[in-house]
């Protein structure tokens, strides 16, 4: 599903160039639930952005569902994101002046789906995450966990092949974190979506099937056993 070969990426800040990714080779198969860990500055968010076609890369090759992602226009990229990828963010990024239903329906709006059908699908998805009764509440009337569940519903609604989550539990307490992780596992297991989570929380990573550890822009360990993470904590 996701195949990265020799991906390099550097940022230019003033006169100096900072190389963030120094040749990433990674294959994530369809239906995997993968966590990406690493210290801050290790390049894990950049990697996620490249996978999500939010950022471009300098060298190497990225194939998404065997399609080479390189040199597409912004409009084409928007289409690819819309078709393949659902995003979940640390700070939820719900649009504050839209209610839960409208937020969930937004990706469908950009797919040109008519309003009635859009709202039906969005409501079904909210029911799926257990928030049907909250459909007409504004984001500021929801708790953190509820907001993240709305955000997850939004990521799922267009039926993407991949869910990309950037620190999805970063702003949540441990109980809510567990609920959100259960939801993501459910998505992976029952809806068959590939899920990639960037996190620095061992508990979160431990809930996934495979952990990729990044250090200084390189993959240090591609097949870390999640169980050892929990052992470490204890």
């Amino acid at each position, binding site marked *: 599903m996701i195949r990265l070969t020799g991906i390099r990426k550097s940022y230019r800040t003033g006169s100096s160039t900072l190389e963030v990714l120094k040749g990433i080779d990674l294959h994530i198969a369809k239906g995997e639930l993968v966590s990406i860990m690493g210290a801050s500055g290790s390049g894990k968010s950049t990697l996620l952005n490249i996978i999500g076609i*939010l950022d471009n890369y300098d060298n190497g090759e990225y194939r998404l569902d065997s399609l080479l992602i390189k040199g597409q226009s912004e*409009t084409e990229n*928007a289409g690819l994101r*819309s078709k393949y990828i659902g995003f979940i*963010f640390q700070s939820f*990024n719900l649009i504050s002046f839209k209610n839960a239903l409208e937020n969930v329906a937004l990706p469908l709006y950009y797919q040109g789906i008519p309003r009635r059908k859009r709202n039906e699908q969005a409501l079904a998805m909210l029911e799926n995450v257990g928030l049907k009764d909250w459909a007409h509440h504004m984001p500021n009337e929801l708790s953190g966990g509820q907001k993240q569940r709305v955000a997850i519903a939004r990521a799922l609604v267009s039926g993407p092949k991949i869910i990309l989550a950037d620190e999805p539990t970063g702003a949540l307490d441990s109980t809510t974190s567990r609920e959100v992780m259960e939801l993501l596992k459910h998505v992976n297991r029952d809806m068959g979506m590939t899920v990639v989570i960037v996190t620095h929380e061992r508990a979160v990573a431990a809930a996934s099937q495979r952990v990729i550890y990044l250090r200084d822009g390189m993959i240090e360990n591609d097949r870390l056993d999640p169980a050892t993470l929990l052992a470490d904590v204890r």
Partner: protein
Amino acid sequence: MFDRENWGEILQSIGKNKLRTVLTGFAVFWGIFMLILLLGLGNGLRNGFAYNFRNTAENSISIWGGETSKPWNGLPANRNIQLTEEDVEALRHTIPGLEHIAGNYRVWRGNSQLQYGNNYGSYNIHGIINEQQLLEKQTVAQGRFINEVDEQLKRKTIVIADDARKELFKDEDPMGKWVNVNGVPFQVVGLYASENEGRQGMMQRNPVFIPLSAAQQVFNAQRDVDEIMFSFSDASLAGAAMAEQRTRHTLARMHNFDPTDDRAIWLDNNVENVSTFNGIFTGISGFIWFIGIGSLVAGIVGIGNIMLIVVKDRTREIGVRKAMGATPANVIGQILMEAIFVTAVFGWFGLALGVLLLEGLASVVPGSEFFRNPTIDFRTAIWALIAMLMAGTIAGYFPARRAAAIRPIEALRDE
């Protein structure tokens, strides 16, 4: 891009920021309002001046005798030129496309006295033929105007305006009454509509009209006329210049003066006056558009500026939309439509209020020689609307470009 979904998005984001929208919209509202107001007032000025020309055929020339300033054919300078009815006849045959021509004889107020019973009044007396009415466009309010029979029979008839009627006759019906003009009785045959209805001060009195032949006889003026006025069919500037030249040459031949002597006769060319007047007002109109567009531009810059802030404000939201599959065209479309919508709505209010105020002004302010009926026509309003929509587009375009260039990663980066 113009479907209902988009409008929903636009209305929602406008509704979210009411104060900001209102403040922005006000700049455009004010710009259009001022533009309409200025154009209307400009039209008021133009209408006021145009009103002054209403009593004269626009394609006409008046001539007055002057005093020669150059010697000619052995004759000295400083000779008085007195126009006569022979000049009228000569001009009648030399001006191409001549429509009406009339000479008139004038007695100034200081030299005249009208008397009826115990009432006295002093008025300018114009000895005229009935063709004069066609040139000066007087309208008869009661009775009749001086006619050809009056002229042929040198009848002692007189046509007066309302001011003279009030002064001489008070509440009496003047028709058929005899008025003494410098001691000679004239019978009132008509009343004409006064052009100075509003202000009958001592200086502004309407002249009274008597037949030219009778005036020449009573005031012992042989066949003299003081003013010759004629109208002609070719109202172009070239046509007017040609008529003017023919007039000078004809009269120079008749009175033996240098045709280049521009003081021998005085000539008032209405075509030239009207065209000068039109030129001035075209200039004023241009200036008003310039000022109005200027204030509109200030509004546009205001909207553009605020939209830029909006884009910056909504960087994250736009980033999210992009992550959710919004194309650059979606983003540009949204910002652009928002700007155009705000401009159009507030601009419309400015337009409506401006027009309303002008209509109110037109009905309250009495027309004068300088200002009258300050309204704008439909075409001007359409142009203002077009200017408005262009303004909205320009105001939205640059912020929209900025929004489209937002990179989702930067927008979504957590601080």
